[in-house]
């Protein structure tokens, strides 16, 4: 099976000379929940931001190696970055609604893609809110400010906002960092359903969360991928000593 994402010997250096990723190779397959975990500042967020080229915003960063998406090099000249970001969509650690209503937020990505069909927009709004387990809570106030929602609701709105684009891949960068346990479990529960339609790459809030939601996982340390495995094995009997030390809480 062709991997959805194939990262091949990737190196990434920030403009200040810090090498955030090195010798990084990883294949991610369709409809799996892949968890990338490791200590803070190990390069997880950098990798997610590379996948939809938000790293373009950094001047003078240096990228070596390849990232293939459905077999296509995402850094090729012919790639339309806006299209790429619609197909590989990102949810950030902090809920970040855009100024405007809930409805405005959900339809923003579609509108900037040139979609004006009201019926289609409405359908996408309802469907994505249902997938993010938010529909029942907001269906009567779609035209109120997104900032009136609670933090947990805002983060589910941000997930729904990505889903509204029907991307191939959803990147979740520690999406439950600011959420209470109830909101966290609502987000985690929705992932199981989402993977039927989407490929999910997630940086978890904790190793416990990683173990709860992962199909496969990779342990990253200082910009290098230490070990990749099926969740059941990786979290119970890792092959690498560093992975074992991290999971059992000896460092990190």
């Amino acid at each position, binding site marked *: 099976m062709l991997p959805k994402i194939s990262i091949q010997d990737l190196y990434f250096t920030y403009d200040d000379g810090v090498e955030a990723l090195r010798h990084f190779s990883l294949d991610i397959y369709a409809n799996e929940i892949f968890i990338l975990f490791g200590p803070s500042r190990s390069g997880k967020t950098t990798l997610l931001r590379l996948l939809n080229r938000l790293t373009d915003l950094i001047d003078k960063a240096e990228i070596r190696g390849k990232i293939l998406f459905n077999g296509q090099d995402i850094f090729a000249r012919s790639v339309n970055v806006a299209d790429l*970001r619609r197909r590989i969509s990102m949810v950030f650690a*902090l809920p970040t609604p855009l*100024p405007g209503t809930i409805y405005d937020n959900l339809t923003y990505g579609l509108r900037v893609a040139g979609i004006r069909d009201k019926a289609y927009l409405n359908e996408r709004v309802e469907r994505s809110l249902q997938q993010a387990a938010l529909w029942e809570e907001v269906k009567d106030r779609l035209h109120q400010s997104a900032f009136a929602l609670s933090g947990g609701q805002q983060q589910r709105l941000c997930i729904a906002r990505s889903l509204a684009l029907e991307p191939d891949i959803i990147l979740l960068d520690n999406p439950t960092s600011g959420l209470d346990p109830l909101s966290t479990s609502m987000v985690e529960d929705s992932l199981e359903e989402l993977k039927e339609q989407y490929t999910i790459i997630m940086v978890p809030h904790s190793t416990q969360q990683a173990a709860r939601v992962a199909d496969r996982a990779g342990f990253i340390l200082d910009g290098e991928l230490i070990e990749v495995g099926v969740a059941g094995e990786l979290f119970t009997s890792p092959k690498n000593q560093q992975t074992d030390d991290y999971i059992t809480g000896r460092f990190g």
Partner: protein
Amino acid sequence: MSRQQVQKLAVGIITGVAVLVVVPIVLVILMIVVMGIGAINWEFLTAMPTDGMKVGGIMPAILGTIILTLGTALVCMPVAIGAAIYLAEYARDNRLTRWVRLAIVNLAGIPSVVYGLFGLGVFVLFLGFGTSILAGSLTLGIMTLPVIISTSEEAIVAVPNRFRVVSLSLGATRWQTIWHQVLPQALPGIITGVILGLSRAAGETAPLLFTAAAFYLPELPRTILEPTMALPYHLYVISTQVPDMPLSIQYGTALVLLLFVLSLTLAATLVRTRMRRRREW
């Protein structure tokens, strides 16, 4: 002196200085209002001046200042806001950007009478616009650029970066991000800057001296290629160039000019506070 006494003395002096700042503005406004209010009536605001401008109204000067202010806005807003967007959103730290910034700083430092000469040379003579509303608007427009560029750039830079990143991550292009997210949020600041810049331009005399202003016109201008009367220049004329001008007309004119400029400043403040209140984050 004990420490407490020094403390008291220092506070006293600083407070005194602060009060000193208030005194001249209150005095200026008070004097102009007291001396000028008597001249203000419907005829003064709406009639043509007659009898060597000693009788009648100042309507052509009021109208001229309004039109020049609008013309200035038309000239400088697109350029200034465009430049501000470039500097805030696109400019990298390179030689071009440094030159542009240097130019803006220097534009702000040029005395207004030099702008007048520049307008005379370029717009009036070289481009052949003559002494006209067009030449005056262009001159005032260029003079106002630096103020509006810097306030607009500040307003744009103040928009939190997370909104740009989110917009881009949802597949918006850079321009769509600017248009849909950055500019709407920067708008209160931009409008404030524009109005404040215009209120300064509205009170300027020197740039109009050679480019647009007429000593006296028996009729209103019909096209933008004709000269116009304008409040600041009119005030200068009736205060220094016409003998036996009644004081009340001088102060009345000053009062109208002051009210015009102050109402622009007030409008800027209102816009800013109202739109700030509507902001959600």
